[in-house]
């Protein structure tokens, strides 16, 4: 009896090792992959494989930095993801099941609630506001030379 159970245990160990060793991504290579619209982004900020596995961590890390510390780099920002990956057909990352975010997430059955609050479409350029980010006429940090800060 003791001998049988030790054999069983060994078999289970070998089985578990085999499952762990098989790289899950290659195992799935035979299956249909989601078809998705890449938008205009032809090269992402990191390699595709890294992004597939880690985009959510990058976004979460960046979200906290932006929200609480006001760090507004664009490299890992959701706004920048949307700007590049919005589909050329729908102008959105999640309007149809072919759009960039929705394609994989519906394929994998992972619900995401980013779009309950965040815009799925990139910023519409307002007329005359193309370079808005750099075109700052007066800064609240600096005194206004016209009235020298005086008030009547």
């Amino acid at each position, binding site marked *: 009896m003791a001998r049988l159970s030790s054999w069983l245990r060994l078999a289970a160990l070998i089985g578990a090792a085999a499952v762990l060793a098989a790289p899950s991504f290659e195992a799935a290579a035979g299956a249909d992959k989601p078809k998705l619209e890449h938008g205009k982004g032809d090269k992402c900020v*990191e*390699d595709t494989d*890294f992004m597939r*596995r*880690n985009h959510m*961590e*990058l976004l979460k890390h960046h*979200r*906290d*930095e932006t*929200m*609480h*510390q*006001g*760090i*507004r*780099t*664009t*490299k890992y920002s959701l*706004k920048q993801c*949307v700007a590049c990956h919005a589909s050329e057909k729908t102008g959105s990352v999640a309007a149809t099941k072919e759009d960039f975010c929705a394609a994989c997430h519906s394929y994998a059955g992972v619900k995401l609630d980013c779009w*309950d*609050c*965040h*815009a799925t*479409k*990139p*910023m519409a350029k307002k007329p005359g506001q193309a*370079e808005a*980010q*750099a*075109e*700052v*006429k*007066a*800064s*609240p*940090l*600096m*005194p*206004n030379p016209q009235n020298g*800060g*005086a*008030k009547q």
Partner: protein
Amino acid sequence: MNEPKRPESNLENGDRRSFLAASAAVAGSAVAPGVLLYGIAQAKPAEEAVTDKVRWGMLVDTTKCATGCTDCVTACNTENGLSGKTGPQDSQWIRKVDIKNLQTGAQHTLPMMCQHCEHPPCVDVCPTGASFKRADGIVLVDRHICIGCRYCMMACPYKARSFVHEPLTEQNPEVPRGKGCVESCTFCVQRVDRDQSPACVEACDKAGHKAMVFGDLNNPESDVAKAVKAYATTEVRGDLRLNTGVRYQGI
């Protein structure tokens, strides 16, 4: 849980340099001769965290604020994607309030919004830490953490906060908003971080009233710091000793 390994940072530095170079080029081309560009010289680099060296504040001069003018409210709604409706379930980040002293008959009109207190009651009562004060004094709601309990709305003496009751679409990409969270004036934090003043202040200046001055209270050279030094100004509900970032003159 494992932190994802970030491919390291030479690339990032390269990016930063090219970004700075690009923005400098844009600035150079965008500015007409003779227009001084304070913003670029002073702007906080995007990768730098805000610090408590700055405290953003505002002074509202009620003697210049025009009765019937709602330009600040409209500008706020446009900038932040609010509907502009004023029903009990609609978000209002800034309101025009008319006040009258019954004894003397003195009447004033003024904009009322989140006062960005140094000791904000909304932050004290928040059970999840969603309501917080940024190092530079701006009081915000982190919607990722907000559970929509609305304690902060009850705690706020200024009725500054609103709750989003219905699903929203077509948000401004810079101002994410959604159902189930509390929200309020952010001093247009997305604009402040790129060194512009809040939309209401810009609209007030544009309308020619110049009743709102925004700036760094900690910088003695700023317009707002000079003004609060030179004139008698009031905190609304000063008895609560919250040390508000928004102050009023002429009431």
